[in-house]
């Protein structure tokens, strides 16, 4: 079972990174979502795997490690907030620039570039 989880983490990571390398904000956001899936599973796995042992006292003989679960909860919530903000920013960028490319270019500088006569010296 460990191999299943490890491979799932690896594949989710790879999918996440690949999408993060696309040139538009939406796939990047999806990629980061995949990355957070992978990382949450990884964090969860730091408590090792167990079946039939939810850490609810009195409901089973053994208990899985509750701490990583609590940490993953926090991580899930945080990455949700982050995704939401990034999504909104992506919308903002698209509404303002008219496209949703993730790369910035010189026109995106707050002010012009200028290659005046003294640009070098």
């Amino acid at each position, binding site marked *: *079972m*460990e*191999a299943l*989880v*490890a491979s*799932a983490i690896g*594949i*989710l*990571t*790879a*999918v996440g*990174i*690949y999408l993060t*390398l*696309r040139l*538009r904000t*939406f*796939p*990047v956001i*999806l990629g980061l*979502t*995949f990355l957070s*899936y*992978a990382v949450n*599973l*990884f964090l969860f*796995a730091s408590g090792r*795997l*167990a*079946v039939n042992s*939810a*850490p*609810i*006292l009195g409901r089973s003989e053994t208990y*899985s490690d*509750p701490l990583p679960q*609590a940490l993953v*909860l*926090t991580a*899930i*919530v*945080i990455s*949700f*907030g*982050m995704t*939401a*903000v990034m*999504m*909104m920013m*992506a*919308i*903002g960028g698209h*509404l303002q620039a008219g496209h949703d490319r*993730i*790369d*910035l*270019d010189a026109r995106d500088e707050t002010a012009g570039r200028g290659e005046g006569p003294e*640009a*070098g*010296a």
Partner: protein
Amino acid sequence: MTPAFIVALPFLGAILPALAIRFGRNACALATGAVSLLALILLIQAAPAVLRGEVVQARIDWLPALGLNATFFLDGLGLLFAGLILGIGLLIILYARFYLAKSDPMGQFFTYLLLFQGAMLGIVLSDNILLLLVFWELTSLSSFLLIGYWKHLPEGRQGARMALAVTGGGGLAMIAGMLILGNIAGSYDLTVILTQKEAIQASDWYLPALILILLGAFTKSAQFPFHFWLPHAMAAPTPVSAYLHSATMVKAGIFLMARMWPVLAGTPEWFWIVSTAGLVTMVMAAKIAFFKDDLKALLAFSTVSHLGLITMLLGFGTKAAATVAVFHIINHATFKAALFMTAGIVDHEAHTRDLRRLGGLRTLMPVTFGIALLASLSMAGIPPLNGFLSKELMLEEAAHTVWLTPWAMGLLATIGAGFSVAYSFRFLAHGFLGPVRDDYPHRPHDPGPGLWAAPALLAALVVAIGLAPMLTAAWLVDVAAGAVTGAPVAVKISHWHGLYAPALWMSLAAVGGGLALLGAYPRLRALWDGVPRPEAKPMFDAVVAGLARLARGGAEGLHDGGFGRAVVLAVLAIAAAGLWAFLGGTHAAGTRVGLPTDAVVVAVWAVMLVAALAVPILHRNRVVALILTGVTGLLIAPLFMLFSAPDLALTQLSVEVVTILLMLLALHFLPKETPVESPAWRRLRDAGVAVIAGLGVGGLAWAMLTREAAFAPISAFHLAQSKPGAGGTNAVNTIIVDFRGYDTFGEIIVLGIAALVIFALAEALLRSPAVTSRLAAWPRARESGDRHPMMLVVATRLLLPMAMMVGVYIYLRGHNLPGGGFVAGLVFAIAYLMQYMASGYDWTHARQRFDHHVLIGWGVLVSILAGVGAWAFGLPFLTSGFEYVNLWPLEEFELATAAIFDLGVFLCVLGAVLLALASLSRLALRTGEQINRRAYDTEETP
């Protein structure tokens, strides 16, 4: 403390001109002059002690940890230089008062000048080489400001930058040199270092230190090959040229060599480097000066040449030569400052400094001519003026110095002197002699005494020292040279050394040669103009421009806003570093017994991964990509459940749904397709990087999962204390709201902030006219005719209260069973979202009785209050209490303060999600939607 006061005065006084300028230009100059005068008086008061051979010291601890202290001392050398700085400074202030135009901001000028003066005094009075560095760079800076004083002139801008680059850069090299020196000597105090000659010269680090320090000195004193900046600094107003670039700042390098002479001089390295640089500089600059048409350029190169002369003398390493060097420093300061001021007067009156447009000024400006005559004859080394005295001594020293061959040094020195004569006479001949012209840009005549008083005084000194050197200068030379050589000096200066002195013949040759050169000027000039020469300025400019281009290409090119490259580099770097770290340590194979494979898990695993792997292939259709992502995310929930984490399953599910809703809302405002933009090689590269990352993370997961922890996990405590300590049987929940409630506190604040950010951004977007017009013209596909189908509305009327019920249930039982405030908040939020979807934003929102912001605010406040409440019992933040309550007719139940905290979580989550989605909906409202007045679209029949 006198030396410290002398240094401090100009700095403290630098504010005065800026204040005094309100009361007029005279007041401004007077205030400046008063500062310098006061410092000069202090110096004169201390002078008798120095002349007696004492050293006046002052010490203030500044940065003892580094050995950098505000330590000052005043010895003979310091006295000489401080005297020059303050004395000539006073004259310059007088001169500048009349030189500057009404439109020039005089307050600023004198402020800079005083800053410069203070820095210069700091250099010559520092008893700590790090402190000396501080002042050293300050002179670079203040001269930068003074050169660029006339802001409208591009030459000033460029000259200032070049000066700063060269002298500031040299100063940086000197930092390294000084640090090495201090490390060898074990102290940065000069008084200590000067006693360590043997140790320093025996050190392996002597040569690096020497070279680095000389780099500083040579750049500052414009020695070859760093001479090129000085002529361009002449864009500064003439008082600046006279003060900085002839009398004082350029002498800082000379001063430093003199200061370090006792410990650095006397080695072959010193001799070869210093004397060669000086010699080359002297000859080459003299030759260039001869061909310059601009009065100030001519004087500038002549300054370079004379500085070379002094450097050469110091390089000889003999006490006699050093003494001559000290003497020439005095002489050069007097005649060169006078000459610069004269050039300034000519410029001021004739509106040109070009020798080709001048001539005949002798009759138009007799006073100015008189001053120029005396000063330039001194510069040419014509007896009996002071320039003659030191040049004669110099030639004598050169004649006795072996450099490559016994005669080479003498010959070259004579050639240099010859050019010196030539350009001095050219200055006079082409500027002042000859017929009066009628095409001056401005008809010149002698200025008022305000302008000529200062150079006249200097000219008087030229004569006085020339006529009676033993009376006027010898005592100063003695004490200063004594300080340089470390031995008592009693100099004998005379005009006549006898017929057998080589200097006599060399002098004669130089004068004769110089006159011959002047006579041959037209032909030589043609030759000079015809031969291409490497020009320093274009070369420097090219180097700097190339550097800047390189820098721009490198830094800006690398940071051109490309995101993919950044991520690829980051991922590869992280992977490489991680692998490198892993391989550097031992990894014992895991011995943990694995779980048997379960078919259900395999099924979930397979479905999840196929959905995930389909995304990179199908991601161009964004809805499809979103659906597949949602499937992956939703299937993680059962995976969590199967691995005994019901709380995680609940959270993952509810978060995933809200995320999908959010992304769908967002997709409305984004393109629906992702175009094919990356070429195949790039997709392949990205896939490669992704696989590397996946292998890395997956491998780590495998390594981790197959091993036990090295130590017992702290969570054993949480399990054990969950019920007795925190009053709940759900250990995950007790960790969240109690053991690590502080994490949760941070987490809900993250969520709250996220909503505030989203709201603020939506506000900003809605205020942008470009955005609102783009929204108003939002392309809409063919759409269904009903926005709010009746069936959904009716179903929601039941589902909303039911979901709320479930939410309350999940909240209440969370402490003991899976659930809690967070999931409850999300369930509530989903229920509300359903209501929003069913009847629309406006209709629903108009009937809502609470504000989202207030909900978030109260969420945070409640959780803070739950935490702070513990203070009342003297317990730390977030300490919880719980009590089992018996309240008839109810059965016993538990009241826990953690529930209050969890309520804060609930409120914050609900508020945050609703605020985020409401913000998005407000954007949607601008896309030309109509606001509905009824819950659903279908016409109601009566």
